[in-house]
């Protein structure tokens, strides 16, 4: 992988050149004392040293609500698919969020490709940045998601006076050539990058007490653990944990009709397994009507089900759920570690 250098004083020029291109440039901005991804109007709005954005960049690939089909009722039903995709450059995405997008890519392609997701994805460019100031709730170091060699067009690392830029795709290379002032990276700068990454790894405050690969088996043995009931007693079923999750991709599909009772649209909107009606089916049966089974399901989804299905864990350790959960029960690391401790005492 080729590496270049952008001097810090030249970064604003690169960002502003991108903003003035035909793409929408999205990056982490300050919002009420936190950070949130949003459209950039100027490079000065962009924060590259943020710890965690409140929401993942997922909404640029899977919007909270989107129209899938427009239809017209009549003697013959007419229906047209709706696929909307704008060119977006996500600037300053942390590795764990890139890993999450890699999971979404797998989930929305495969045997049942999702044309709405894939059309957007094809128009999204990802400029990553290594996270050097991890959030206190993050545990990426335990999941191998603190850094990434894949999933980006460009990857930045702050080494003090400049940024090392790893080139991950020809598109990234082209953007760099067209819009940025760069120079070749020296060997010592690449060493500095490794040091920065190593230093960041040591800053994580939360860690798994086992290796990530052991999670599916641990969960396999933990179905009857009391921890699910204990924790879920405080659960508000508010869905905050799944709404802020970069890997949660569930949605509900509904129809809406205009007042003329002829034209209508079919849309989808985010849904989540922690919500009471998520597993409600026709006839009124709800497969997970109590918060204990919903809580357990989410943990299994994160640590076992998606692993078995896609070969990737359903959690990237970003810490958003733990940060968003008012009841302070959402951290997968906390539950996994409790389960591990239970096993240790049992065995």
């Amino acid at each position, binding site marked *: 992988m080729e590496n270049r250098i952008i001097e810090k004083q030249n970064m604003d020029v690169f960002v502003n050149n991108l903003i003035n291109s035909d793409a929408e440039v999205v990056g982490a901005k300050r*919002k009420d004392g936190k950070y949130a991804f949003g459209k950039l109007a100027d490079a000065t709005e962009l924060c590259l040293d943020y710890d965690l954005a*409140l*929401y993942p960049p997922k909404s640029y690939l899977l919007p909270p*609500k989107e129209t899938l089909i427009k239809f017209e009722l009549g003697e013959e039903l007419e229906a047209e698919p709706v696929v909307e995709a704008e060119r977006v450059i996500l600037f300053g995405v942390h590795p764990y969020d890139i890993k999450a997008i890699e999971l979404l890519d797998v989930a929305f392609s495969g045997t049942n490709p999702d044309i709405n997701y894939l059309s957007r994805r094809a128009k999204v460019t990802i400029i990553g940045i290594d996270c050097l100031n991890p959030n206190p709730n993050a545990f990426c170091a335990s999941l191998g998601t603190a850094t990434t060699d894949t999933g980006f067009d460009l990857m930045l690392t702050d080494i003090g006076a400049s940024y090392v830029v790893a080139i991950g795709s020809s598109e990234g290379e082209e953007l760099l050539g067209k819009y940025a002032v760069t120079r070749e990276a020296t060997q010592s700068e690449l060493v500095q990058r490794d040091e920065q990454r190593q230093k960041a790894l040591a800053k994580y405050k939360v860690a798994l007490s086992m290796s990530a690969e052991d999670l599916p088996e641990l969960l396999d043995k933990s179905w009857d653990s009391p921890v699910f009931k204990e924790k879920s007693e405080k659960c*508000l*079923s508010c*869905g905050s944990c799944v709404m802020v999750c970069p890997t949660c991709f569930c949605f509900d599909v509904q129809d809406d009709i205009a007042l003329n*009772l002829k034209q209508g649209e079919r849309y989808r909107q985010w849904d989540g397994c922690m919500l*009471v009606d998520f597993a409600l089916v026709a006839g009124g049966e709800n497969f997970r009507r109590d918060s204990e089974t919903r809580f357990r399901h989410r943990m299994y989804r994160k640590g076992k089900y998606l692993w078995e299905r896609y070969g990737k864990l359903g959690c990237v350790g970003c810490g958003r759920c733990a940060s968003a959960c008012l*009841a302070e029960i959402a951290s997968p690391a906390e539950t996994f570690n409790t389960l591990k401790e239970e096993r240790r005492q049992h065995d």
Partner: protein
Amino acid sequence: MKPRLGFFDFTGCEGCQLEVINFEIELVELLELVDIVNFREAMTEKGEDYEIAFIDGAITTESDISRIKEIREQAKIVVAMGACASLGGVNCLKNFRPMEENLKIVYGDCAGYYNTIPARPVSAVVPVEYELPGCPMNRYEFLKLAKALLLGKKFELPNYPVCVECKMVGNVCVFDKGGFCLGPVTRAGCSAICVTTGRHCWGCRGLVDDPNVNSEKEILQKHGLTVDDILNQFRIFNGYLEVSK
């Protein structure tokens, strides 16, 4: 023949009826599909042959009780519009004080000329088919119900809390900003409008079907509210419910 609608006001600010009138363009479209035969706030004519009755306001007097029962006899479908009709709403604040005292505070020396009873939602007096909670009700939810009724489709309110909609619009949590909020137990359907505009959720859409009130109360206490503070917050719109007692 088009379905015939009537709008009736009880104790409230009539803002939910205003929401219907505020439609303008959609109202014209709606009138292609229905006849409105009774709507004091919007028209002079009064017909009593309505099939669907939309009720605005809470039940707060003895005469309210007999009037709502008459409306129920006539209407095939009764819809409670807004927080007052569906929850009792702010009217229930008076329920925490003796009725005589309320009369004295409001009417002074003339208190003896009036009567008042503890405020209650319409459903406490007569069966109600649909409720459109909120202060005011969400008029697009009103339209959604109207379309569902016209098409014979099922109508359901969201059964998840405001937090879901707050997250969908990308708000910073009120608790993270040092405030407090009833959003985690309050029924969504408002697009989290209060939080989005810089305030907190007051609970005007009532609670979700299965709210974890104990957990919410614990969280509010952790964020500095006393037990009295918490009850006062719930009483603003949900005074009729057990959660406020």
